[in-house]
């Protein structure tokens, strides 16, 4: 009934809400943007004040100017043989490779476990057991098994990202409305059709949300992964600089890590919008 009624209602209400939306939405965006900028500005001001007044030991909290100078120096002359972009490149390569692998394994695994109860029962113990394990504990074992090279680092990042994707994919698939599935089946859909035209599109938004969270997890273990025998990477740079008490480089590295994380998340959201405009 409501479906029939809506086409008639649309012209009036849509027009009204759209105008109302426009009026309220524009100031709303700039307002939240303003508030966000205020937070950043306040933080910077406090930082400047605290360091200028000499309230903080410069060894622990260097001045913003010193951190900026460290940024410029690392951009142009580099830190221990690699520029900031090279360090960032090494880290992003590790993160993106591991994350891609985690998606390639995690999404099919999650779909399988979501669709088939038997598969879920078979694989659940494994996923549930290693999900809460602290990554650093795993890492010592990974280093012993796989050595100090790239493979142990990638495995750690992969293992950090995998459970998030698997679990959110299972949830996404199991929460697909069975009406869609039955409707498609009654129209003669094969399993293949079901997968690509019902399950994945319906579960897509939730899967992508899981991927975003999982990328965050991967990101948080980066420094841990680069502690052992790396010679490039933002995480390694932070670790190494801490050994020499170069706190300006440490803070600069953390800011770069944070901003890169935000950027990666924005990219993920952009991809989500592009792939799934219905979400």
């Amino acid at each position, binding site marked *: 009934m409501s479906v029939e009624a809506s086409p008639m209602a649309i012209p009036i209400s849509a027009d009204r809400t759209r105008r109302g939306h426009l009026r309220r939405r524009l100031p709303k965006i700039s307002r939240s943007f303003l508030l966000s900028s205020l937070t950043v500005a306040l933080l910077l001001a406090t930082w400047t004040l605290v360091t200028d007044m000499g309230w903080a030991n410069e060894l622990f909290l260097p001045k913003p100017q010193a951190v900026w100078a460290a940024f410029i120096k690392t951009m142009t002359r580099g830190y221990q043989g690699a520029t900031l972009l090279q360090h960032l490149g090494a880290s992003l390569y590790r993160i993106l490779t591991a994350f891609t692998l985690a998606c390639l394994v995690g999404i099919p695994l999650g779909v399988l476990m979501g669709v088939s109860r038997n598969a879920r029962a078979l694989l659940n113990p494994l996923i549930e057991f290693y999900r809460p394990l602290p990554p650093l504990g795993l890492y010592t074992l990974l280093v012993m098994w796989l050595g100090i090279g790239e493979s142990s680092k990638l495995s750690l990042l992969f293992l950090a990202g995998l459970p998030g994707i698997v679990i959110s994919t299972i949830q996404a698939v199991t929460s697909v409305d069975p009406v869609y599935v039955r409707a498609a089946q009654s129209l003669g859909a094969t399993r293949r059709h079901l997968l690509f035209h019902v399950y994945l599109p319906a579960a897509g938004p939730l899967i992508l949300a899981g991927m975003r969270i999982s990328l965050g997890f991967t990101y948080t273990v980066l420094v841990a992964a680069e502690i052992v*025998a790396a010679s490039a990477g933002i995480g390694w740079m932070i670790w190494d600089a801490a050994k020499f008490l170069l706190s300006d480089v440490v803070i600069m590295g953390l800011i770069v890590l944070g901003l890169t994380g935000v950027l990666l998340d924005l990219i993920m959201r952009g991809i989500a919008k592009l792939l799934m405009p219905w979400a």
Partner: protein
Amino acid sequence: MKRLVAMLAVVTMALTATAHAEDKPAKVTVGYLNLVNAQLVTKHLGLLAKEMPGVDIKYVKVGGGGDMLRAIAGNDVDFGGLGNPPTAIGATRALPIKGILVINMLDYVEAMVVRTDKNITSLKDLKGKTVAAPFGSTTHYLLLQALKDEGVDPASMKILDLAPSDIAAAWLRGDIDAAWFWEPNLDKAVKNGGKILITSGEMAKRGYPTWDIGVVMNAFADKYPSYVEKFVKAECEGIDFWLKNPEKTAEIIAEELSLPLEDATRMMKGTGMVPCNKQLIEEYLGTSAKKGKFVDTLVSTADFLVKQERLPKLLPRADFEAFIQPSYIEKVVGH
């Protein structure tokens, strides 16, 4: 967060200390390096507890100089031990510590081990190989110094930063071709297809001595000067015990580090112990009136680290002189 807790702890400690007239710390935390030296004897025989009755004494094992620096910066220890490169870093970054005691001189207890089947007979053969050292430590410093002296470009090989225990594990897996690090882990590499290419003792003869120095936090030293003397006295007793009873010391080292007795004996011989009355001669700390060669080593180490871009600038010599404080030892040995 930890630092905040530590700061709060210091504040409360300061408050309680002023409340009590008696100058006695409730607890003393000693950070000691995982090395073969007389600090293990002092710890094993409980000599510090004998000097400080009623004080809760806590020993914390620290993996290397980098970790010790962090522990000091985080105010997690009252006493610590540092090799000359971390000391140069700490002094340059104005960490609130002073050097009060020679813990040990490093001879062949630290050395570069190379894989026998890789035909490495000189530093030049390291080109294209994978070499490990704990960054920021004495051996990392000597590795770069030795390469520079031989005219070998460090960029021609892969130099990795690994903790000593990780070096041993990576060596057993075959991931690295050479490593400059220290006992007790060094021996594991030598016994598994390795041979010694160069020792830290040989580098000392070339004019690059490396050593470990006992340090005290300034705040502790200002508040409990007599307890710093007690600490020095206990460590001096440990050193004397080491020099007078080598066999019993070997048993202690073997037990503390879970090593066979013969290995402990050999490692002991690779460590130079300086009796406390000798520490005041020019070769070591020197006296309060005229500081010794340790200052020279610190200046040249800091200079090297500045050239490596690990330190921002070279401090004047006076700052390193101020760091070395033989006054406590002077009181203990009665000068």
